[in-house]
Every structure is written in structure tokens, then in C-alpha cells.
């Protein structure tokens, strides 16, 4: 009952917001004290225009306003018109996000584990890690573009840089807080140092790593988009910049919605994986 009520509220709020966005600006002239000029369609477009724009940008509807799939070859022809159409842009952004995520997570985990288990190493590297961590990662994006060019590499590096610290700190904490008694139990059951690492330290640190996966994928997406803003041939970020240059609010909004949907799907997938990998945990609260 409660769930249905919640769902109804959610739908109502969503539709309400869309309705105000769609028609609210028209009220602005008549009731300026009620409706702020924030809703000017020139800047924020409106839902119906965004949807139309989406159909066009995705080549689902041709320039003549007919469904592309009604005419042979119309979809392919439309797709060929731009090498950064919505589909290609999404593909590039997602691909680089995934690479940034994978490289960031794996290297962050290894570094966190190494430094977390070695007092000597963490002592030596402590000032450098603090220093690097204090630099806003986004500030490095232009330098990375300069160094790695406007191709995929610079986007992956930017995303990696954002993800690696997040994962590193989580893993580091996890590696430090491995239960002493678990290590003792393993030793008393005959485990060598390497076996203790492999069968106790890595799995218990994994739990901490998994907790950072969900933010890591979101961060990775942010890194890629920022990289694309600064300089790219493909990707949603470039698409936003181009639409902005043309003063096309609807085009920017389409890109933002695609990113939103991508973000939601990626997080949901990661949470699935996370829930499966942490299934041994009692009543684990993974959502949030």
C-alpha cells in the first residue's frame, strides 16, 4: 500500500515538474510575481521541444518529419550525416566511462592494498597522496587534453584520475581494518603470509572496494564529460558544447537526459554486481 502511494507521489511530482516546465513560461508574462523568468524556453527549452529534438538527433525521425524506418536507408543516411550523432556520441562516452572505471578501480585497489598493508610505504607516500588529493582533479583536465590529445586516451585518463583516488582511499581504509582475528585464525589454520593475503586480506578489503564502485562509475562519467567539454571529436560532452555554440537549448537538454539515463543504468548495473558480490553480508544496505 505504502509502495503504491510512494509510486503515485513520484509520478505526480515528475509530471507536475514537466507540466510547469512545458507551460509555466507562458504564465510568466501574465503573472510575473509567481513565475520566475528562469523558465524562458530560449535557455531551458521545454519538454515537447526536447522530445522533438531527441527524435531528430537520434535519426528516428527525418528532417521531413517522417519516421526514418518508414523509408529504406533513411536512418543510415541520417546517421551518416554526422560523425558525432547521438548514438555514436553515447557509445564513445560510455566506452570511455567504462575504461576509466575499470582502470581506476583496478589500479586504485592495488595501490590501496599495497599502501594499506605496508606501514613503511604509506609513511613514505603519505605527503604525496595528500598533496595530489588536494588538487581538484578537474583542474588537471586541460593539461591532460594537452598531453594526450583530443582522442579517447585523454578522456580515459581524466576519468581514471577521478576514480583512482576514490577507490584508493576506500581500499586503503579497508586494508587497514582487516580483522586481526581473521588473520590469526588463518595463520593458525596453516596459512603462509601469501595465503593470508590472498584468502583473508584481499577478500575482506574487497568489501570496501565494492562499496566504492557505485560512486566510482558516476565519477568516471563526470571525468569523461569534463574531458569532452575541453576537447573531443566524439561524445555527449562535445555534443553539449556544440549545441551551446548554436544556442540550441533543446539539443543540450537531450544530451543531459541521455547522460541521466546512462548514469541511472550504469549505477543500477554496478549495484546489481555489488549486491551479488556482497551477498554474504547480513542484510547489507547497498542502496542509498
Amino acid at each position: 500500500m505504502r509502495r503504491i502511494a510512494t509510486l503515485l507521489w513520484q509520478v505526480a511530482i515528475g509530471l507536475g515538474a514537466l507540466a510547469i516546465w512545458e507551460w509555466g513560461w507562458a504564465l510568466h508574462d501574465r503573472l510575473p510575481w509567481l513565475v520566475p523568468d528562469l523558465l524562458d524556453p530560449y535557455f531551458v527549452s521545454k519538454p515537447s521541444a526536447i522530445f522533438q529534438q531527441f527524435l531528430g538527433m537520434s535519426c528516428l525521425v527525418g528532417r521531413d518529419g517522417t519516421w526514418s524506418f518508414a523509408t529504406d536507408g533513411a536512418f543510415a543516411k541520417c546517421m551518416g550525416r554526422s560523425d558525432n550523432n547521438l548514438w555514436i556520441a553515447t557509445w564513445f562516452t560510455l566506452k570511455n566511462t567504462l575504461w576509466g572505471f575499470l582502470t581506476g578501480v583496478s589500479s586504485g585497489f592495488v595501490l590501496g592494498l599495497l599502501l594499506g598493508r605496508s606501514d613503511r610505504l604509506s609513511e613514505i607516500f603519505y605527503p604525496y597522496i595528500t598533496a595530489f588529493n588536494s588538487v581538484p582533479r578537474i583542474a588537471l583536465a586541460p593539461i591532460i587534453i594537452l598531453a594526450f590529445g583530443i582522442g579517447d586516451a585523454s578522456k580515459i585518463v581524466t576519468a581514471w584520475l577521478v576514480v583512482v583516488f576514490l577507490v584508493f582511499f576506500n581500499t586503503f581504509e579497508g586494508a587497514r581494518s582487516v580483522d586481526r582475528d581473521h588473520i590469526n585464525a588463518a595463520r593458525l589454520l596453516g596459512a603462509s603470509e601469501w595465503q593470508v593475503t590472498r584468502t583473508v586480506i584481499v577478500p575482506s578489503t574487497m568489501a570496501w572496494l565494492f562499496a566504492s564502485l557505485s560512486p566510482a562509475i558516476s565519477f568516471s562519467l563526470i571525468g569523461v564529460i569534463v574531458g569532452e567539454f575541453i576537447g573531443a571529436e566524439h561524445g555527449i560532452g562535445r555534443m553539449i558544447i556544440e549545441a551551446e555554440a548554436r544556442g540550441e537549448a533543446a539539443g543540450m537538454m537531450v544530451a543531459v537526459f541521455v547522460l541521466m539515463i546512462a548514469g541511472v543504468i550504469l549505477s543500477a548495473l554496478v549495484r546489481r554486481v555489488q549486491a551479488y558480490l556482497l551477498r554474504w553480508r547480513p542484510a547489507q544496505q547497498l542502496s542509498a
Partner: protein
Amino acid sequence: MASIPPEAAAARCRIEIDKLRKGFLASGNEGDREVVAVDDASFRINDGEFVALLGPSGCGKSTILNMVATLIAPSGGAIKVDGAPVTFGKPERHVGYVFQKDTLFPWRTVEDNIGYALELAGVPSGERRGRVAEAIHQAGLDGFARFYPASLSGGMRQRVSLMRTLIANPEILLMDEPFGALDTHTKLDMHSVLLDLWERQRQTVLFVTHDLGEALTLADRIILLSARPGRVKQDFRVDFARPRDAVALRETRQYAELFSRIWHSLGEEFTKSRNA
């Protein structure tokens, strides 16, 4: 089966503790000072003996056990297992240890926890599966092989712990109040399980407890420690016939007699530790 008096069975000494001492450094407002947990503790345990180390809390009984297990370094004295001195941090291969705290690996299922020691030793998976299945059956855990520890009760978790240690067939078993956190009923149940398992192998056991009833139910000998610093106060022989019935035993007269004898002595130490 008649009870075998331990001293008749060649009396090979397995654990020898000689003038063992352990002091901890405690920091306080008036500077650091040494707190002596164990002082001048000496005893020997023969092959196949089930010995309970009994004493009031804080008397250093777990400290002694952990020194034998090489988890804590002694400040003085000597510990020999099978005639050889033990080294801190280097557990002996044939010595098993059961913790009071739940130390099961939460990311491993019941079967993977129990099979852990075999996995470390490189036992082929076919043989491992067979031995694990048998252990699961012996501990009365049938049907729970694929469960994670988090979904088991405290008693079941302790059974898994027990089997995780026993599967490697340790000849010497060190147990640190393994049933201390369980309720009375579950505890009795675990006593039956342990007695049953022990009858098959007759390992040499050093069992730390503060529960006199538990010590009497399980052990051949009860070594009573004094209040801190822990010294051996008295050494009682518990010659109830084996195999024992953990429940019926408690109703016998000999149990009641020995209980009150040791209880009196234990009571003195409780008073001392309270006034200390």
C-alpha cells in the same frame, strides 16, 4: 568403553609449561606500570588428556593459551610442545585453535570455511569435498553447506568453527572459551557435540573456561588458576567414566561432590579478584 586413565597410556608429555610469565605495560596518569597477567605458571599436559584451565576472569588463562598458540610472546619462562620450544608467530602445524569470538570468514560459505585448512594444504578438491561433507555431517550441519555464516545461529557458527579446526586433524587442540558466548542450552548441546567428536580422535586438549560445570563435563583434569597474577593454584583430577553424557552427568553424586570441592577453591579466587 572403559575410561583410559591418561597416566597409563605411556604418558607422553605434549605440552610443557615452565615458570611462564607475562607482563603487560599499562599506561596511566602516573606513568607506565607493568601489570603481571601470568606469573610463574607451570604445568604439563600428557598425550590424549583433556585439560581445562579454570579461573576467575582476568586471571590470565587466555593469555597462557595464547602464548601456547604463539599469538602472544611470553615475558619469561618456557613453553614446549612435543619437547620443542615454541616460537612467537610460528604456529605449530599439528596444533589447532578454536576462538571464543566468531572468526569464521563471513565471505565463505559453511563448506568453504570448513574446507579452508585443506585448501591451504593443497588437498585436491575431490578429496576435500568428501572430507568437508563428512565434517558437516558429524557436526549436525547437514543442509547448511551453502549457507553464509551471517545466516547461522551462534551455536551453529561455533560448530562450523570447531569443524574448521578439526578437519586438519590437529593432535593438540587449544580452545579459548569457545562456548562462552552461547546460552546455557546451546552450550550443553555443544558439550555433547565436542565430547562426541573428541571420543573419535582423543586429541590432547587445553580448554580455557571460567565455567566450572563446563570444565567438569569435558575435562580429565582441571587446572585451577589463582586470581591475577595467574599461578597454578590446584590441579584436580576428574575421573568420571567416559564416554560421558553431558546432561546426565550433572545429576550424578560424584559430579556434585567434585563440583563443591572445586567451587570452594574457585570462590576464594573470585573474592580475591574482586578485592584486588
